[in-house]
């Protein structure tokens, strides 16, 4: 009967890493309210390793679950490895998303990348 997998429901009902990081080393925001999805990611990076990550999401259950899962997948990872995160990996880790919700996993990938880009640009400067 379920619209979503148990994993999606778990991450939607009990999202991991919710919130903000005041002194984040990288922040990324993607999406817009017009389309109904906005994700914002905050990264704390020490010695090229993502030591902490938090997110805020305005969107449907699968957008919230995708954000939550994406933060879990990159926490403790090296920046380089986090850069390689794909939307497919997010969707697979959630045991799949309905076809018309795949864009939520794309948004999660983009949000992570935007936060990493922000970190990289700050670090180069």
């Amino acid at each position, binding site marked *: 009967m379920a619209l979503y997998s148990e994993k999606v429901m778990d991450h939607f009902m009990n999202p991991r890493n919710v919130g903000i990081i005041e002194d984040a080393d990288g922040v990324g925001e993607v999406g817009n309210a*017009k389309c109904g999805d906005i994700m914002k990611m905050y990264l704390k990076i020490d010695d090229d390793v993502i030591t902490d990550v938090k997110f805020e999401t305005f969107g449907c259950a699968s957008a919230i679950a995708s954000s939550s899962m994406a933060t879990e997948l990159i926490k403790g990872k090296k920046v380089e490895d986090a850069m390689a995160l794909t939307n497919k990996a997010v969707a697979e880790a959630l045991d799949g998303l309905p076809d018309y919700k795949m864009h939520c996993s794309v948004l999660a990938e983009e949000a992570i990348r935007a936060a990493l880009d922000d970190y990289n640009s700050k670090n180069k400067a």
Partner: protein
Amino acid sequence: MNIYADNAATTKMSEAAIRAMTDCMYNYFGNPSSLYRTGQIAKEKLEEYREEIAKIIGAEPREIIFTSGGSESDNQALLSAAMIGKKKGKMHIISSAFEHHAILHTLKKLEKNGFEVTLLPVHENGIIRVEELNEAIRDDTCLVTIMTANNEIGTIQPIGEIGSLCREKGIIFHTDAVQAVGHIPIDVKAQNIDMLSASAHKFHGAKGVGFLYCRRGIVLSNLIEGGAQERGKRAGTENLPGIASMAASLKQAVENMESDNAHKTIIRDHLIKGLSEIPHSALNGDAQKRLSGNVNFSFEGIEGESLLILLDQKGISASSGSACTSGALDPSHVLLSIGRIHDVAHGSLRLSIGEDITIEEADYIIENVKEVVAYLRSFSPVWRDLVTGKKEFILK
């Protein structure tokens, strides 16, 4: 607690409807077109149901044809009126911006075939203005189609006034009354309605059955060709058990209409009052001129689908105008038509309550909606931007 608050989507069949339906299945299984006794008994029942339904809306039995439901009735009504117009060289149709897609998509099809369509604005209160209809009428207007009550925000249109204006101008007036039949009084003669669509499952009848009222003298075009059922206007063996359920449920709905509406109005207003306490929220549609069962709110800073799923976890079934609930990109055209911008339209909630709802259940809904909205706002970047003053609130 388990509360079904999505009666605008569909209703639970009434016991009377189920009884009538199974009674029909057991006892009148014949084909009404067959000439032997078993068939003729079925035919008699069919005409009995037709008479009952016609009487309730003030029509003649011969003015009712049975269909598969609201969408089919809407399609047939519009295509028939367009055909009549075309023969007279009249190819302009007036409707409203927030009709059901069964109307809007049929109008699109007619536009592709050379018709011109004017969609009247429905304003912030979700009600068309008759003077604007009057201004929109042209010499080549062949049809006005305006819904009786809106399916998302429940606002009730001035059907009687529209009817007399159209009658005076000699224009066919169709109304999609799918949300209204069995819920508010309808008299096709007094209200000068030429065509009306209805669907049984919106008033506790079975799904897949409805009717189209078409005033005597207006010629219908067939959507379905075949046998001579329904005076040759709708082929196919009649869905007699479904029709039996429709007649029984409509009869009951009309008998209890006054007391049901009185009860639902109290609960509706209680819900509106309670949900209004949520900061930066707004009721969609006129507060008074709306169906007694409809409550529709927008909450700023959240998205409707996640709201629905969390409410479902609490045992509350409701609906939303969010794009995410339909798989479409845009939120509800109804909410956009009353001037809600995308950001706010995504965060909407429709509660359509049934007759058996209690005040305790309404309190449970209020309490949980408040809790869930606050929870979703707690990690919404949109809400953070609003409360930190980065963005301005749309709903004050």
